[in-house]
């Protein structure tokens, strides 16, 4: 009789351990992994706002700025996007060029990352103001040299 109870207790214990242990193993095994699939979208336009449709682009990775990492052609709206290799932190150079017109943008990828950026570009008011200053300078020069000499 005693023997019988011992076996039953033993079985219950084994059963309990069997039930509890796997749960404990699962709890210890939890882990979170993540990857950021960063895509960089480039929009290239001429200074009059027209898209650089069909312009060629060349992407240079930071570890080798002389060999193209990726080349291709912009779509009709002057756009293209690519996913940089995040294992290469540093400044990525992207050149867009068509018929001798074009520009280079430098995108830092890594710790000092910026979300948006671009090159050049003034607002219309700034442009008008600068042009007006230049014209006034020219007119002033013209007036100065065309004044009549007094005897």
């Amino acid at each position, binding site marked *: 009789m005693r023997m019988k109870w011992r076996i039953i207790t033993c079985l219950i214990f084994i059963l309990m351990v069997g039930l509890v242990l796997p749960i404990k193993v699962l709890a210890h095994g939890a882990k979170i992994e993540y990857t950021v699939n960063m895509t960089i979208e480039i929009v290239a336009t001429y200074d009059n706002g027209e898209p650089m449709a069909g312009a060629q682009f060349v992407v240079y990775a930071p570890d080798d700025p002389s060999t193209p990492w990726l080349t291709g052609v912009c779509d009709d709206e002057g756009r293209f996007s690519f996913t940089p290799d995040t294992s290469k932190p540093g400044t990525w150079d992207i050149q867009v060029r068509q018929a001798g017109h074009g520009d280079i943008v430098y995108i830092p990828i890594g710790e000092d990352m910026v979300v948006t950026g671009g090159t050049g570009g003034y607002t219309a008011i700034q442009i008008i103001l600068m042009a007006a200053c230049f014209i006034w300078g020219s007119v002033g020069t013209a007036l100065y*040299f065309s004044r009549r000499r007094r005897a």
Partner: protein
Amino acid sequence: MHIPDGILPVPVTAAGYAATAAVTWYSVRKINKKENPRQDIPKASILTAAFFVVSWIHIPVPPTSVHLVLNGLLGAILGYFAFPAILIGLFFQAVMFQHGGLTTLGVNAMIMGLPSLIAYFIFRLRKFGDKESRWKTGVFGFLSGAIALAISVAMFLVILLTNIPADLDVGTERAAIYTLAIAYLPLIAIEGFITSLLVVFLQRVRPRILDGV
């Protein structure tokens, strides 16, 4: 027409600067030999401003758009003042609007400035023959404006075609350059017409402006 920074290799931009320095020196020497070198500064100054502003007037020529250059007009009216005037205009366009670039300033000055001197020589040909007539002024005005721009387009084309970097697809870039060059063809006629109109107008209302050249 304005080649921006980062398009041309360094030896080409350096050669552009060297050539520009030589032509500027030659132009200034010629100006100094005039009886009164200061006399033409007012009209040079005004036309520099016109050259500076006119690159913002875009004329749509599908599939692209081009802008007026007026280098032939500057050559016809300014003579040897045209080259320094264009150089100054290009410098301010590059600094203020990133239109062109500082490294390519020499190359751009050659592309637009050298044909303007050729335009001056063409416009001077009107004085040959019996007498100056309005008709002759108009024809030579047209020729100076059109030929100057045609030479500019040709120089622009040759410089770009010989400097396509190996990283680009050469065929695509070459096709894009030809497309742009074709877009400039109607502009050659337009500039010739504008130059012709303006010199005929000046000869009628203030012929002294054209006296110096």
